[in-house]
Each structure stands twice: as C-alpha cells, then as structure tokens.
C-alpha cells in the first residue's frame, strides 16, 4: 500500500494514548507489527518536553504520525501541526478538527480549511473525516491524498455504524487510500472494515483498554490480514435462499 510517497506493509495503524504504561504500549506495538503509530501533541510539549515518552516510541522503529487530537479550531490544528513538524521532523500530520465535544465528530468545514492551509505548506495530510462523499472530494481538492473516514465516534468501540457509506466511499474513490479511523472496538470490526475494501484501519482505545493489550493487538493484526485477504479473494454474493453445497446431479438413487 502506498500512502503519499511511502510504501507501507502493515495495514494496521495504532494510536499510543491510554495504555497502562509505555512498556505495555511497546509490547502491543511489537505484537501487532504495525509500522505507523500516531502520537498526540500538546502545547506543553512545544518545547520538546515530552521526550521521555517519545524516545520510547522511537526505539520501536515505527514511523510516527503526529496528530492534532483535541484541536477544536483551524488555527489550533494548524499551529499544532507546525509544532509537530518541528518536533518529529516529518511532513505527515493526522489532521483532527473536532466539532462536537460529546461525540468528538469532525468539524468538516474547519477540517477542509485546515487541510488546504497545511497542504499548501507542504504537509502530507491524513484527515480524520466522516463518511461524507462531498467532504471527501473537498479534502482531495485541498491536496489530501488519503482519507480517514470514521467507523463510529472516537473511543466508542461501536464498530462500523454505517457500512453502506464506507462501501460507497470505496466505490466513489477507487484509487484513494481509505483508512478507517475511530470506532473499532473488536477484531470483527477491523475485519469487516477490511472486507469492505478499506486500505487500512487505525485504532487506539480497542487495544489500549483491553485487558491484555498485547494479545488484542495481535488479534487486531490477524483480523486486518483476514479481512484484506477476504476482500481480495472476491467473496461470494449473499442470497436469500439456500443452495446445496453438494451437487444433486449424479447422486446415487437409493430407492
């Protein structure tokens, strides 16, 4: 899978918040063999003061995708992205502009505006968006080359609330990498997203808050692989009626 100019092998991207400890986080990263981890940046880290934790992440050898989690305005998101570029020395930014305090859904108007600003500044933007096709088009126009539609509200673990919309996105944007971001709760959710033809899955809470994060990370990786393989294998269509799986023709007549 190619995202911007980078070739990626693992289709599971992992967030780094809410783990019981950095040691548990590192175990989880190792057990799912993800290549990309997201890291949120806060203002108090602007002077590089989060380095203890970041050093731990760097030691895993994964590629860091900084995010603008918790930003509620275009200006905040743009400033955070610029800080992240300085601190992590990467043009990648996972862009979140949160529009609602309760369900943390993206403010898609602010998102498009921030994406336009950041793409013009040379960022490679990974926008956290809804499953709205028109918003997706505007983000591509703004310069994004990947879309990250939600499956369900962040941290809710509800799975894919609207699989039809994601299917529609796949059909509408056949050549754009689509990463389901947010809402995955169980391995079956991740598998379903991949079966729909999504290119990858990004999740955090489902692993971090599992009783055994490393085991859940591995389960998620396996689910992503299974879903991808299933999608590529071109699944059969569903029918309303039964069809015997053993042919009737040529059966012995036992009368």
């Amino acid at each position: 899978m190619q995202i911007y100019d980078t070739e990626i092998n693992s289709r599971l991207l992992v967030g780094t918040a809410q783990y019981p400890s950095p040691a548990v986080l590192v175990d989880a990263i190792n057990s799912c063999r993800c290549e990309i981890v997201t890291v949120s940046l806060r203002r108090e880290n602007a002077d590089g003061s989060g380095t203890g934790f970041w050093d731990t992440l760097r030691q895993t050898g994964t590629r860091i995708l900084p995010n603008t989690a918790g930003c509620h305005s275009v200006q905040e998101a743009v400033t955070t992205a610029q800080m992240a570029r300085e601190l992590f020395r990467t043009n990648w930014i996972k862009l979140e502009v949160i529009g609602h305090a309760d369900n943390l859904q993206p403010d898609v108007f602010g998102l498009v505006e921030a994406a336009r600003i950041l793409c013009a500044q040379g960022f490679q933007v990974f926008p956290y968006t809804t499953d709205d096709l028109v918003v997706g088009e505007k983000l591509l126009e703004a310069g994004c080359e990947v879309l990250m539609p939600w499956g369900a509200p962040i941290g809710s673990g509800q799975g894919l609330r609207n699989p039809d919309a994601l299917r529609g996105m796949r059909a509408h944007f056949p050549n754009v990498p689509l990463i389901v971001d947010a809402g995955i709760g169980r391995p079956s959710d991740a598998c379903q997203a991949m079966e729909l033809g999504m290119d990858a899955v990004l999740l955090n809470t489902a692993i971090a808050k599992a009783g055994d994060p490393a085991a859940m990370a591995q389960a998620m990786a396996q689910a992503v692989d299974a879903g991808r393989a299933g999608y590529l294998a071109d699944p059969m269509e569903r029918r309303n009626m039964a069809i015997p799986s053993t042919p009737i023709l040529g059966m012995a007549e036992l009368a």
Partner: protein
Amino acid sequence: MITIAGGGLAGLASAYELARREASVRVFDPGDCPGSNSVARFAGGMLAPWCEGESAEDEVVTLGALAADWWAQVTPVCRRGTLVVASPRDTPDLTRFARRTSAHRPVKGAEISELEPALSGRFQHGLFFEGEAHLDPRRALRDLAQSLQDMGVELLYDTPTPALVDLDCTGMAADLPDLRPVRGEMAILHCPEIEITRTLRLLHPRMPLYLVPRGDGHYMIGGTMIESSSTRPPSLRSLTELLSAAFTLHPAFAEASVVEIGAGLRPAFPDNLPRIITHNGRLHLNGFYRHGFLLAPAMAARLADQIFPGGKR
C-alpha cells in the same frame, strides 16, 4: 552511617525502614522543610491498591495492600474506603472497572446515599472498595519526618548533598536512564457546605477524577496524566475538566473556593513500577509514578533489607 540524598517520600520512607532496623541514618535535602521539593506534595494521598489494579500491574495491588497499616504508625489514616461512581452515560466504564479490579462490591443509589448522604440521588450505580484508605500527603510527610527525628535520624535541610551517598532518592533530579516525567495537575477546593467523608472516583472517558477529603471542608481533586516534563502551572483545559468533573459529583462545588492549583512531575520507568537500581555506582530508589504513598512502604522495606541485611526488623 547510611546517607540518603533526597528527603521526599522515597528518602524519608527508606530512612524510616533503615532506622527501624537500628541503622544510623542521615538525610540530605536542598529544601527547607520535609517534602518541600517533593512531588508528593501534589499527591492525592490515596491508599487505594485495588482501584489502581484497574490499570496497574498486580504487584502494585500486592505491595500496596500493606500501605495503610504502615502509614498509620506515623500519621492519621482515614479508613473509610473508596467509592467509585459514574454518570449513567458512562456505565460501560463502571462495568469494565468492576471487571478489572477486585475487593469491591456493587452499590446502588440507596447505599450510595447511606455511605455519602451528600451524594443522595445523584448516582444510581457505583462500586465500594471498603478496604481502601487515604491520608493527607503534606501532613504525612511532616509526621514521618517528626517520627524520624524521634528515632534519631539526622534530617539536614538546606544542605547540599555530598558527592558520595549510599542511597539516591532524588526523583526526577536523579537523571536515570529510562526515567521519564509524567506531569500531573491538581487543585484544592474549599467547600464547607458539602460533607464527603471518603475518597471518590468519578469515571469519565476524557479524564477520570478523584476527590480526596482533606478535612475541614477542604478537598483535593486530581489528577491529569500527561507525558511531559513541563513544570508550568496547570492548563485551563485540565482545570476545566477537573473542576467540571467536581461539579458533576455535586453542583454545590460550583460555590467552592479554589484555594490552590498545582502541577508536579511524577518520575516513572517504562513499566510504571518503582525500582531499586544501581547506576554509575550509586544505589537509587525511584520511579514511584503515581503510587508514591501506596508503594513507598513496601519498596523502602525491600531496600532496607538489601542494604542493611544485618539489621533488626
């Protein structure tokens, strides 16, 4: 003579365990009074091993279970348990918390009102950890220092640490590999119109809150967990979350006076467990993360056994 650098929680607890074994002990601290430089000043003072088991290793629960009895030797310990509650919309978090912890029982609205009449009618579901306790961290540091002086330990304040000491308990100042700061923010409220008698935890997806009674209408609320070495005062975002969570516990907190806000850096190793380690020839006790009052007694005893094996118990 055993010399200790750092008169914070780890240093004082270690001095106590050594002195109990009849070692002579001298503690050096750059501050002017017990714990004045210690991040323990900003601690909640919860002795809540079973609640911590939700996200901590089993060892925290095992070692922490001894803490209340240890502290009761030197300072008042309030043994009224911990009450964990959640808003109706966060009930899944309560279910999960119950599944991940032990030594609790579910309580319904009526029993919550019995335990804490001030919360009457406010929460329908909760968990009660009857065996847990809390103390006042600043008083505990003072009382511990007083006990040490009574035992003949020399506590030298405003005193630079000599180049050679037997034990280093200087927290974030120690510059150990893999030791990282985890920033925490807190506030102290004065709200005499509410009487809450035990530690409360409010589960919340963004920021779990704890509230610890300090007596005389004072309540400590905390605490954030931020991977940062910034020592700036608490941010408005953090305070907004903490204070609005207090308001969720009881609307009367709206009229509370905010008498103090503070931020500190908890020293932590990657597994968030404390360690006794030797680095560059010096012995260290460090990395108490958010479990200082909970784990200092057990770790200090382990350390004393290690460096003063001939001592009495």
